[in-house]
């Protein structure tokens, strides 16, 4: 019997669905596709709550265990991991209600808000790096902003993931500095018309030679914090006029007080000599 196109489509659809026989989950709908598998919304029948179920295309070991070690407010907690009846690996995790970063940016958040998200992403990376875990595929599609502003970094790396071309560092062997490269691209993506100091931070993070990037995410974070506080950043040697302007904006109140004091002094001097 020759399979018609509609039969092939039906077979592709039904055979692609994860076989949840023997698990406590009921499939609801597909919510996204990552580098290694598909994420579904599902209902946990035992606890009567909705969860996100990541089902890998093929059996893989380790990703769930890897993420389970990362208990951090910006890393989605894992509830359970295992193997489905069809041999595919899966894990259940908290279902994040919110928007993917690329969609979140469509709402035109302020620079301060964008910097807060970048800061949270970098914190997650620093935390993971300290435990020997690298992300490997950081990109806007792997960052979620929750309904209360929580930031989550998802899809933590599996060895087989090669990264997304635009966010992937040029080196063949990915390491912590490859994540720093990706976070630099993320800064450019999130703040396309960034002030010179922030652009310089992104450029330093994205240097083709990994030895010239920030040595650790914490160094990148420190520069971001300096920028947020209006201090000079390590990545940029600012010109004198820019330094003066930054000094002026940081000490505006003091300068106004000084100007007022000088004005009064001048007025008194003037009145005394009239």
């Amino acid at each position, binding site marked *: 019997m020759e*399979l018609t196109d509609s039969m092939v489509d039906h077979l592709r659809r039904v055979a692609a*669905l994860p076989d949840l026989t023997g698990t406590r989950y009921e499939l609801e709908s597909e919510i996204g596709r990552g580098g290694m598998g598909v994420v579904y919304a599902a209902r946990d029948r035992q606890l009567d709550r909705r969860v996100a179920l990541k089902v890998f*295309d093929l059996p893989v070991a380790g990703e769930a265990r890897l993420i389970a070690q990362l208990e951090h407010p910006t890393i989605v907690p894992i509830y359970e991991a295992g193997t489905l*009846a*069809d041999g595919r690996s899966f894990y259940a995790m908290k279902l994040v209600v919110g928007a993917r970063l690329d969609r979140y940016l469509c709402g035109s958040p302020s620079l301060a808000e964008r910097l807060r998200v970048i800061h949270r992403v970098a914190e997650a990376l620093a935390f993971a790096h300290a435990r020997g875990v690298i992300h490997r595929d950081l990109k806007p599609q792997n960052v979620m902003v929750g309904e209360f502003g929580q930031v989550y970094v998802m899809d933590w790396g599996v060895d*087989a993931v090669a990264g997304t071309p635009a966010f992937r560092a040029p080196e063949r062997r990915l390491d912590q500095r490859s994540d720093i490269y990706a976070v630099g691209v993320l800064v450019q993506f999130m703040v396309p018309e960034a002030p010179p100091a922030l652009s310089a931070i992104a450029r330093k993070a994205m240097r083709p030679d990994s030895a010239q990037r920030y040595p650790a995410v914490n160094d990148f974070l420190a520069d971001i914090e300096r920028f947020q506080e209006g201090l000079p950043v390590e990545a940029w040697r600012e010109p004198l006029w820019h330094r003066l302007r930054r000094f002026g904006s940081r000490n505006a109140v003091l300068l106004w007080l000084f100007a007022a004091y000088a004005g009064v002094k001048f007025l008194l001097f003037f009145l005394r000599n009239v």
Partner: protein
Amino acid sequence: MDTDTGIGGAAGQFPSTDLSLLAAANGELSNQALERVVALYWKPVYRFIRLKFRKSNEDAKDLTQGFFTTALQRDFFRRFDPSKAPFRAYIRVSVDRFAANQRAAEKRQKRGGDVEFEPLEENQVTTESAEEAFEREWRRQLFTLALDDLRAHCNESGKTLHLRLFEAYDLSGGERPSYSDLAVCHHIAETSVTNHLAWARRMLRTFVAERLRDVTSGEGELRKEMRRVWS
């Protein structure tokens, strides 16, 4: 009428093997494994030649046969570099070159130079490109072979009821029967119907993966091809 070919090979003729294309790169691919490659790619190649080079059924069959004969005689598999493209793309590009060379040779042989193409029949007129047709035929052939594997497996393991339910529901060309209709018809509980169907779909997925494993160069390519099939 100039209809499509029925050639393509039933899976029963091609016993399972664990050999991959990596073995082919070392020149160690067995005839059985080669047959599995041909079983999956014969029809997509034929379809591609037919659409792209507007060949008649017989000419397309000859060219397809010629392509595989040449591929098997020369070190076609040795030249495959998995870091550059998946095997599927390698085959398609190779067929394209092969058929173009053949056409150029035909042209040189003919006085006056012009090659007369077979007119496309009405039922062949399509907006689909030859590349799309190749992909579509590749998927169809992949599922056809996996279904043959599933049937053989069900017959060997005595799971004929599973197969009957699967064929009645998932291979129904028209309106699908309800689970309760199938339960009544086969004197089993409705939950058994869904469980049997889940088992058959699971096995089908496994056989698709096995078929792909034979024609990919390793885990990385296999993953990509799996994504291509299921997405």
